[in-house]
Structures are given as C-alpha cells and as structure tokens.
C-alpha cells in the first residue's frame, strides 16, 4: 500500500529566510501525482504546488518550489523569502490516476518575525 511520510512534525523559519519541508512516499507505481497542500489557522485547505511523476522538471509557484527525486521517492517543498502568512500546516499528498489521495501526517510551520 502507498504511504506518505513527513518526518518533521514541526518546523520554524525566520521571516525572509528559506525553509525546506521533507516528504517521502512509498509506491511501486510509475504514474502518479504529488501535491503540497497548506492549511492555515482558518482551516481551509489550499493547494500550494503539484507535480506529475513523469515530469523531471521540478514544479515552481512563485516562492514555492519542489525538489522531486523520483528514484529516491522524495518530494520536498522549499519556501523562499518566508512570510508571516506562510505559517500553517503543510501536507504532502500522493495520488495515482483514478485512485484516492493519500496524505502525510503534516508539518506545522511557524514563521518567526
């Protein structure tokens, strides 16, 4: 069965600095999708970034980028120039086509002014 692991329950970063959140997953599939979702204190889940497994190029969305290592089954999220609004729970997620999404346990990110 597929699993998603986030080994850092909590992280903190100084405002304007860079932080990397880790995610590893276990799968025997070659075709799948990976996501990072953000959950701020408002509780609303928001998509941050997404990656198709067949694409070697790492996805980027403004200050957010990923380091996708398919062979290592690793999908880390880098947040550059951290802002106070980045403080949230971050969930890594995995999905095969036509199948359900599997979430990791989450990493709580604090941003220190």
């Amino acid at each position, binding site marked *: 069965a597929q699993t998603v692991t986030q080994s850092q329950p909590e992280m903190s970063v100084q405002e304007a600095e860079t932080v990397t959140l880790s995610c590893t997953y276990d799968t025997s599939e070659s075709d799948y999708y990976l996501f990072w979702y953000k959950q701020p204190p408002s*509780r609303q*889940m928001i*998509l941050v970034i997404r990656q*198709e497994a*067949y694409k070697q190029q790492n996805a980027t969305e403004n200050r957010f980028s990923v380091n996708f290592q398919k062979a290592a089954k690793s999908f880390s999220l880098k947040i550059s120039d951290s802002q106070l609004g980045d403080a949230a729970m971050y969930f890594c997620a995995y999905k095969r086509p036509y199948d359900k999404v599997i*979430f990791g346990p989450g990493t709580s990110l604090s941003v220190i002014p």
Partner: protein
Amino acid sequence: NAGVTQTPKFRVLKTGQSMTLLCAQDMNHEYMYWYRQDPGMGLRLIHYSVGEGTTAKGEVPDGYNVSRLKKQNFLLGLESAAPSQTSVYFCASSEFGLGTGELRANVLTFGAGSRLTVL
C-alpha cells in the same frame, strides 16, 4: 462560485445520537471524499465516491455511512455517535482523472471543514 460547501460547520452531539453532514459541490466533479482530521494524524479517508450512486470505503470507515444519490451531493452519516468520532471533517472533490496529462483533474478542492464534538 461556491466550490465545495459543507453543512453544518459546527455540531455538538451526545453519545448515541445520529447526524448527517452534507457536502455539496457545484463544479460537476466526479470524485468526492470525506476525510477526518485529528491532531498528529493528518487527514484520513473515511469514504469516497467515484461517481453518482457509487461509494467505497477508505482507511477509517467504521461507524460511518455515506450516500451519493446526486452527483453534486455526498452525505456522511453517523448512526450512533461515539466520543472517538470527535474530529474535524473535511469534504473534498476532484474531476475525473483522464490520464497523465490531466493533472488538473486530480487536484482536490476542499470544503471549509465541520467540527464535530461528541460528548
């Protein structure tokens, strides 16, 4: 453009009572999901549906039932609530994934969550 709407947002129940959470989406999505979120455990899938009239069990289905009579609605029922079902419940939906090129079809859109307390 409402997206995914969950009702109610808050509810307090006594042990043994029943209730239904309603999820409605206006995006014509095929897939709908119910998750529960508990501290330190992330989101765990309760039940899901791949289309109108179909449902399937997720990771933690015991104590819950679901129905998808209409494509836009996905109901989560608790027949006899227990304190262990105190949680925040999230509904989500996604388009039908058509293949590797359809990444957008596999993105989840979430509701705002429903906090349920069982005393």
